């Protein structure tokens, strides 16, 4: 199959999953009604609210489709795309296939921020903001440490990332220790397992901007990421200064990771497994890998979230499901030797 055919197929399946997701949920709404509500929204969107279909459905049905399912589906697509792209970019930059988006401490930092916010009794939006800020701060710290180190940049960065991560996870453990076991501790634990159950339209607006700011430059500069996959000395011999490019990739990937984690909690495996899966299908070239990772990450997380919100009466945290699905796939890749090496 040619690249274009494969890409088109991926686009179509992403769109298909996106639309099908609207029909899935615990609250039973029949097929034509959902279709009518979606059509009505679409018409209103194109005509700037001047035209709409006659309302034959109840306000509750409309609220479920527009205010509960739509933000959730959009958020899972956005978070999936962001995590997979960030993972792919980091893997290229560190020339290491085992790297995931939390390598520089973005996720653990964001997790600590959220735990601290829950401990201090912040409101729901306060928790999101704190988590975002701490995710960014963690990476900034790791970057500053690696900057002042004399070891080779990428190694210093990985080491600093590991150090900052363990610092923040120790912080999180401490917060859990002192948190009220009746209300705060379960909230923190649940948050750390990752869930989109409380995502609202406002959260979507909050996360959309940083994710786009991260995604667009990576998309535009995706051919340049190929340059980072060769060794630093080699790149320099070709007359390329990788320092600034590397910093840009870090900023973009961090923005995306922190923003996703701040609305969804910790969702593992997407950023690690999806880029590998894409490499199997589309090869090593980052010109293809970036858009494909984004699409496949979005599709994957929408599918998993559909399971999370419908399979039982209570929600199953997303992080658990992605690990259950991601880990076996990854094992399979390792055993069959299909996971392509980066160098």
């Amino acid at each position: 199959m040619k690249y274009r055919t494969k890409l088109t197929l991926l686009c179509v399946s992403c769109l298909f999953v996106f639309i099908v997701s609207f029909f899935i949920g615990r609250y039973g709404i029949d097929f034509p009604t959902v279709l009518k509500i979606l059509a009505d929204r679409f018409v209103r969107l194109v005509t700037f609210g001047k035209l709409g279909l006659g309302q034959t459905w109840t306000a509750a049905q409309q609220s479920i489709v527009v205010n509960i399912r739509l933000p959730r589906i959009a958020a899972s697509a956005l978070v999936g795309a962001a995590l997979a792209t960030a993972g792919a970019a980091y893997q290229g930059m560190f020339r290491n296939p085992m790297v995931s988006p939390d390598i520089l401490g973005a996720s653990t930092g964001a997790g600590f921020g959220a735990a601290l916010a829950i401990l201090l009794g912040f409101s729901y939006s306060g928790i999101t903001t704190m988590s975002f800020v701490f995710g960014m701060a963690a990476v900034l710290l790791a970057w500053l440490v690696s900057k002042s180190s004399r070891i080779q940049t990428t190694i210093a960065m990985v080491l600093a990332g590991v150090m900052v991560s363990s610092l923040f996870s120790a912080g999180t453990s401490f917060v859990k220790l002192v948190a009220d076991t009746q209300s705060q501790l379960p909230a923190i634990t649940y948050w750390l397992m990752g869930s989109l159950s409380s995502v609202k339209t406002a959260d979507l607006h909050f996360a959309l901007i940083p994710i786009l700011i991260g995604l667009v430059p990576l998309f535009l500069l995706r051919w340049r990421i190929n340059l980072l996959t060769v060794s630093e000395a080699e790149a320099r011999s070709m007359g390329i200064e990788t320092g600034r490019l590397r910093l840009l990739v870090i900023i973009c990937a961090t923005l995306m990771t922190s923003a996703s984690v701040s609305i969804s909690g910790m969702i593992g495996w997407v950023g690690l497994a999806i880029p590998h899966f894409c490499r199997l299908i589309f090869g090593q070239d980052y010109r293809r890998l970036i858009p494909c990772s984004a699409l496949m990450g979005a599709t994957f997380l929408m599918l998993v979230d559909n399971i999370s919100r419908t399979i039982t009466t209570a929600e199953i945290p997303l992080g658990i499901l992605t690990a259950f699905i991601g880990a076996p796939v990854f094992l399979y890749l390792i055993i069959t030797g299909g996971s392509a090496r980066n160098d």
Partner: protein
Amino acid sequence: MGDYKKGIAEDLDALQAQIGIPCIFLEADLAHMSEAFRSLGTILADKEERAEELATLIDLTMILAEVNNQSIPEEQRLSVMFTSGSDGLGTNAKGSSQAQVIELVGARNAIEVEKVSSKGGGNIVSLEQVYNADPDVIIFSPGSIYSTVASDPAWKELRAIKEGRYYEIPGDPYNWMSNPPSLNMVLGIWWLGNLLYPQYYNYDMVSTAQSLYEGLWGYKLTTEQAQALLAGSK
């Protein structure tokens, strides 16, 4: 003290052997709470009188709930969703030790899940599940999204929200409904009963709260403080 768990006797025997201090277990859900306080009174020196006071207060509360529970006709029984957590989606579902008060006062728990969690924080449900259950009344934890649900597009179409039948649980010294599930649940029975069925639980909650605080905690609550506590109960 707390919920009975299998193996607790062996665990405590081992602990007793280790530390050399006698260890006992008192089951203290609402049904056994007065008994637990009476046992404490006999065990602890000079506390018999105080324990008897508390036990009597609990017994009185339980009798009040039982009598009213039996007189409320089936068609008047309301379904109540008891949320916890700041986003309002943690739910103390039917059968959890946090939600005992709901059924004691004569209401139904609106949320039933397959695997009930009795840890604080309860089971996380999706909003769609709440629309499905269509509760008559929703009670929110202190410090949650209670104040914003009326304008929140995802919540405001719920029947309980539209009809204004949603309330904030008073949170001092602890959440009156549970969190932790202990003596403060006595307050919860008086509060929730009066809130849902004022024709049966017929008393003024402000002055009742004042006398309960005096009886339970030995604290003199002023009228203003009581009113502030009950601000979310309208």
